[in-house]
């Protein structure tokens, strides 16, 4: 297990995002080819209404931006998304740390996330047990004629209780 940390996401991270995107686009396939994100798009990645958003740090380097959104405290679930450097071996552990933080912070039963099936990482990137609950065929446009499938995953609280404990001292 890699040693990772989480830190708050502030204004400096908004401006750092351009560098991350330059570095990561092409492997994460985000944003879609042909789009060059400007300042507004970069700022849009910092979600004003996200209940938790953290930068993952490993080896003194920022390797991912994790976001919890669409928190539904009636039905007790939320959505997880991330932008990560897929070349970093610690990215999955960083996302796992974020999952642990989210489950400790809110009484949700599970988190859901979506991953393009032609992406570099897939659901396997997350270092916690996941359930693939569906696939949306031909859902994301890649170019004029090609569309990527999108896989839907769940991370369920009952499956990650041990992971949550293991990460207890590492998340900060």
């Amino acid at each position, binding site marked *: 297990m890699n040693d990772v940390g989480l830190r708050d996401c502030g204004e400096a991270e908004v401006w750092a995002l351009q560098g991350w995107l330059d570095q990561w686009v092409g492997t994460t396939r985000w944003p879609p080819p042909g789009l060059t994100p400007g300042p507004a798009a970069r700022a849009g990645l910092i979600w004003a209404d996200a209940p938790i958003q953290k930068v993952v740090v490993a080896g003194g380097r920022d390797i991912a931006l994790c976001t919890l959104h669409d928190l539904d405290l009636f039905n007790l*679930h939320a959505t997880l998304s991330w932008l990560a450097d897929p070349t970093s071996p610690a990215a999955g552990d960083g996302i796992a740390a974020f999952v642990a933080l989210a489950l400790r912070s809110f009484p949700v039963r*599970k988190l859901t996330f979506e991953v393009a099936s032609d992406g570099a990482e897939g659901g396997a990137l997350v270092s916690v047990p996941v359930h693939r609950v*569906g696939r*949306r*065929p031909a*859902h*994301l446009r890649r170019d004029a004629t090609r569309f990527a499938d999108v896989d*839907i995953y*769940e991370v369920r609280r009952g499956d990650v209780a041990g992971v949550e404990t293991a990460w207890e001292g590492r998340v900060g």
Partner: protein
Amino acid sequence: MTGAELAFGQPLAGRRVALRPLDRRRLAELHALLGAGDPRAWPLRGALPSLDELEEQLWGASRVQYALVARGDDRTVGLVQGLDEDLRSGTVAVGIAVGEELWRAGWPLEGLVLFLNLLIAGHGYRKLTLEVPAHGVDRFVGSSHRWLEDEGHLAAHAVTEHGVEDVAFFSLFARDWDRDLALQVTGNARAGAGGTS
């Protein structure tokens, strides 16, 4: 058929249901509809917003939405919405709400057929998505299965009057939409609605 009953060349009126703009009158009727019934069952869960708050929520949530109106007495019976649109990928989620007294009636779903046809043949969306709680799948999806693709099931995802239920999600590709059949079942086959399928 009058111009007011067409949008993007597609019919807005069926045999018993019509899609009408959400003006202040329709909003007020919809607000009353949302406030009635069992608060455990209704999606707003008893937390009824004011009329102004409802208007703000609806306009913030959707760029294409209509009131479902019973043609017989011009009464607002529900709402259809396009949600979470992705113009690059040509996708949009479809939401429908119907007043409690008509939950088990089939005829308001004619408005859904009109709306699906409008989104595909009128607005040109490539793919529509719909989410349905487990208890509603047989009734809601049963007759539409030839068009819908089962994409998966979110486990224990929604608290309803039936408990904590799975939610099934379906899709409808424009390529699979039978516009001629949609016009036929809504009584528009001979009305000469414009547009192409």
